[in-house]
């Protein structure tokens, strides 16, 4: 159910503005305090904005795009799009 925690995170930052701000200001600290369990691979992929890997792991793209819309983990429309379009889907 670990991928599910990433999905939850992507939803939570759209609904909880205080949480969103924490992730924008200090993503590493905010991620370490996030209460739902994440695997080491997910932790690394999130912090590096590696949305292609997360997508291949099964994270929901519709939710994941919110990370880039809110410019979390160094993502923006340009980098998010490049990494997603590179996935051989």
């Amino acid at each position: 159910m670990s991928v599910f925690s990433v999905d939850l995170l992507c939803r939570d930052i759209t609904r909880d503005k205080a949480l969103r701000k924490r992730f924008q200001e200090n993503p590493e600290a905010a991620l370490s305090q996030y209460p739902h369990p994440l695997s080491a691979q997910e932790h690394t992929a999130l912090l590096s904005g590696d949305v292609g890997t997360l997508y291949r792991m099964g994270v929901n793209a519709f939710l994941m795009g919110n990370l880039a819309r809110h410019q979390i983990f160094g993502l923006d429309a340009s980098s998010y799009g490049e990494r997603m379009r590179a996935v051989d889907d």
Partner: protein
Amino acid sequence: MATVVGSIGLTHNPTYPGLIAKNGPDYAPRLAYGRLRQELASLKPDVIVMFDTDHLNTFFLDNLPIFAIGVDDSFAGPCDEVPLVPRYTAPSHRALAYHLRSEAVTAGFDLALVQAFEADHSVFVPLHFLTPEMNIPVIPIFISGHNHFARGHMSPMPSARRCFELGQTIRAAIERWPQPMRVVTIGSGAISLDVHGTKIAPGLFVGVPDPSWVERVHKHLKDDRVADLVDQTTPARLRSAGNVAGEILNWIAMMGSANRGAPVWSKALPDEGFIYAAWH
């Protein structure tokens, strides 16, 4: 008995309220929504039954029904903060919704019961443009029409045939409602669209991977070739048309409930991935 007096298909694109406010009077989506608002008014509906796809707002991945129906006296939304769309409360019709669910389950369509719910832009963007007075009861029927997982983990969507038959079942249930009532059915969704997925356009969060599919769907609708549309709406086609292209299933359910024949009016915007149409 109650009667389906007309049907409407349209997009619920949440950026249109902002774009329509910014663009001029000849902006195509503004004209399309305006035309459909006139069509809806001319049909004088007592109730709207809307087939739509939730975007993980009413539901989430912890509990995701394939088919569901809102059964309540009213519901609020949009619950996903759509720019320039106020928070509304839409009236509904609990008794009719209960009847539709009972009839559908008896006919083999297991509609999940949804009460005390809110709905997202898939319901409220169409209502915002078509009936902002929120004075017509609305019953939402939710169809899981999104590719929610990546390669190898794609969630199954219901088949186009199953959705068409759901629409036929809902029409039959409406016709078994004992009191006279004018019902308009609506199908809410895109035809080709990718949101945050692998087929988005450079620099954008969305893309329209298959404008030719939009043109083909529009032609089938204009020619009243619903059987061909159902046959060609395959999982492979939906996948290539974008991760929310399964929203066409709402259109197909609406077609199952509609009066047959060509639409009285229709407009395709292939490069945007959308169609607008009305049937009487």
